[in-house]
């Protein structure tokens, strides 16, 4: 592939042949893991009650899909996330921007924010359930709370990282506050904010599921608990893998947006 490096510098063609393999390699990892899993169960290294074979999990998946169990519970969890994630992210963006612009606010708010962040969410999730009830709204709140912090921190870092000399340029062009935000601060901070959003996307699943663990009528967190109490280990696996799939898709979605938006960064390296 890259044998002709001496005649053609590597930098001249950053997306050479290797890219296909690099893209496929995560898939290969998954395949190997499934194979190992299969062998472990096939050779009875571990009891099948603890680790059911992949085929059995697949059957359970088919059943949960057919009778609508999975769709119902995943739907609840997704719904909570789809409300909680934007809610937490918008609040994180707004407060992060305010703190970046007014350092005094940081002194006022940082004790609360750090206290919130350093307390495990499992510990105060019951509190949120008491306040917001066992319906979806309490899970929207746990999700919002958990995604708030990475968004906040990355927004502060991103906005503070805006070049002071580009600020001078915008001022000398008599740009309005809105123009400075829209044409300088936002695009300049976007790489950092999107990195935070990737973290938030994966945390959103945790937020919703932790809320459901504590008290809920439906959702993937509820399904895990009920499957476990019925010793339906394959269904536990199906549910956990569904959560993984949701987190991965959401992460990939943000990564895709990042890839589309940050063309200039790829071209600049």
């Amino acid at each position, binding site marked *: 592939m890259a044998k002709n490096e001496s005649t053609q510098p590597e930098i001249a063609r950053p997306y050479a042949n290797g890219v296909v393999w690099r893209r496929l390699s995560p898939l290969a990892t998954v395949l190997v893991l499934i194979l190992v899993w299969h062998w472990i169960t096939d050779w009875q290294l571990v009891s099948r009650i603890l680790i059911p074979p992949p085929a059995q999990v697949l059957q359970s998946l088919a059943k949960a899909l057919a009778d609508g169990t999975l769709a119902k519970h995943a739907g609840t969890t997704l719904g909570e996330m789809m409300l909680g994630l934007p809610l937490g992210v918008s609040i994180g963006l707004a407060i992060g921007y305010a703190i970046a612009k007014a350092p005094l606010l940081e002194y006022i708010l940082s004790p609360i924010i750090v206290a919130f962040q350093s307390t495990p969410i499992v510990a105060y999730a019951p509190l949120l359930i008491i306040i917001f009830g066992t319906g979806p709204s309490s899970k929207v709140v746990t999700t919002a709370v958990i995604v708030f912090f990475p968004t906040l921190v990355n927004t502060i870092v991103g906005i503070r990282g805006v070049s002071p*000399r580009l600020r001078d340029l915008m001022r*000398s062009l*008599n740009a309005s506050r809105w123009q400075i935000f829209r044409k300088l601060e936002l695009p300049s901070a976007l790489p950092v904010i999107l990195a935070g959003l990737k973290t938030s996307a994966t945390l959103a699943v945790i937020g919703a599921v932790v809320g459901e663990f504590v008290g809920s009528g439906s959702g993937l967190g509820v399904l895990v608990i009920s499957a476990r109490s019925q010793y339906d280990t394959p269904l536990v696996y199906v549910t956990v893998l569904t959560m993984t799939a949701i987190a991965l898709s959401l992460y990939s979605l943000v990564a895709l947006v990042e890839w589309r938006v940050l063309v200039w960064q790829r071209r*600049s390296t």
Partner: protein
Amino acid sequence: MRLRLQQLAVSYPAPGGTLLPALGPITFDIADDEFLCLVGPSGCGKSTLIRVLAGLLQPTAGSAYCGDALIDRPLPDIAIMFQDANLMPWRTVLDNIALPLEIAGVAESERHQTVRELLPQLNLDGFELAYPAELSGGMAQRAALGRVILQQPRIWLLDEPFGALDALTREKLSLELLRLRQRSRQTIVLVTHDISEAVLLADRIIVLSRRPGAVIADIAIDLPRPRFAAMIYQPEFLRLTKQVRESIESLRD
């Protein structure tokens, strides 16, 4: 347009609550259409002066006027060009140059048209869709120059705009600057370290002293225009260069 500096002084807050005088007080006028070069040792407040004239920095004392208007904020008639190109890395060359028009609310098709007409003069043909990181230093500075041109300022403030470039590129860009200026004459204030560059470009050179900067020499450069690179070998050019150099060196004691 005329610039007036009256008892202008700038101090910066220093550790311990004291004020560190950086510039002045200085008083001088810059005539309409004049090409003025500011030279002086590092840290003499040249850049500070440029920032005050750009309306980016409030003077501690005294005031600066553009025509009759007090410079207490960035004025639309005055444009500044920075030490490095100061382009936005996420914008293409086209959109970087078009920024002043975009801020002014000009429609996208119209501003792109305007920039495309300007590109040949800037020798940036074919690079309109490149990103700043893909440009050489000289090309990036030419894009920055294009951005200043589109502001259509009456006064250009140039803070060592070619300082980071190699000597030959710098000379070439300086002369391009003169050529671009001849079409519509503006007042130019150029900060530079390079005495030859100052003599080659300016109508007048002001030498600033060490911090806090004060005017120690005000030298008229009456070389004929248009200027060209080979002028640097002429006796008159050498005499003026020597005069500027001696006034700067008189500071070293």
